[in-house]
């Protein structure tokens, strides 16, 4: 009987958790699965449906060659590609490679900058999704002090 009660209790806790779901659903566009992926290829499949990208020199990825502090690595991505739908940053050797993804609106220029954390030296990929396909470029960033905690 004791065990049965525990189960009921657990069940009601699960229901309570379900009740808080709507708040999560509001941010449904946040690609939880892709962000949770531990391999760069899988993260790209989860986010874009494929890990195949076309290398493009129409994308400019500005990152430092050597980042002394992996906790703050400036990244700037611009592209002359047209009809950009999204821009994503993937750090191949990070525990969770997908760092960020930016959803563009028609009037938004393909020119974004941010700062990311890198655990170790890694290739950084800029992935640009347009109505014509998925394009990317990548650069290696050497990290002297990792920035992923621990």
């Amino acid at each position, binding site marked *: 009987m004791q065990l049965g009660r525990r189960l009921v209790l657990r069940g009601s806790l699960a229901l309570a958790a379900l009740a808080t779901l709507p*708040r999560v659903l*509001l*941010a449904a*566009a*946040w*690609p939880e699965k892709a*962000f949770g992926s531990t391999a760069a290829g899988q993260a790209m499949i989860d986010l874009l449906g494929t890990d195949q990208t076309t290398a493009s020199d129409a994308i400019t990825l500005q990152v430092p060659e050597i980042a002394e502090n992996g*906790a*703050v*690595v400036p990244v700037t991505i611009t592209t002359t590609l047209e009809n950009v739908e999204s821009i994503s940053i993937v*750090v191949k050797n*990070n*525990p*969770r490679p*997908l*760092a*960020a*993804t*930016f*959803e*563009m*609106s028609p*009037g*938004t*220029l393909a*020119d*974004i*900058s*941010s*700062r*990311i*954390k*890198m655990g170790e030296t890694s290739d950084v990929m800029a992935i640009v999704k347009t109505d014509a396909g998925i394009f990317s470029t990548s650069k290696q960033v050497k990290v002297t002090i990792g*920035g*992923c*905690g*621990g």
Partner: protein
Amino acid sequence: MAGKIKIKTKLTGDVAEIKSLMLHPMETGSRKDPDTGEVVPAHYITQLTFANNGKVVMVANFSTAVSKNPYFGFKFSGASAGDTLKTSWVDNVGGADELETTL
């Protein structure tokens, strides 16, 4: 949670350049507190949204790999002086903040 967003805007023609800075710890969930040795729970901004006069111009989805006190800059066209730019974010534990600025 107010006052944790800083925005700088610059209007050139109809192109607005936005630079934003959020005050947020962006904890990865894998860092250990150096004093207690306990893992600091993940606490990070998941989504940052910009809307100009009510029209969404940018949605930035962040992971824990975005640096502490995130900086984010972008540009959009079709802006004019006097437009209201609303910046808002939500984090993984239900925290949120928003700020309205005039271009």
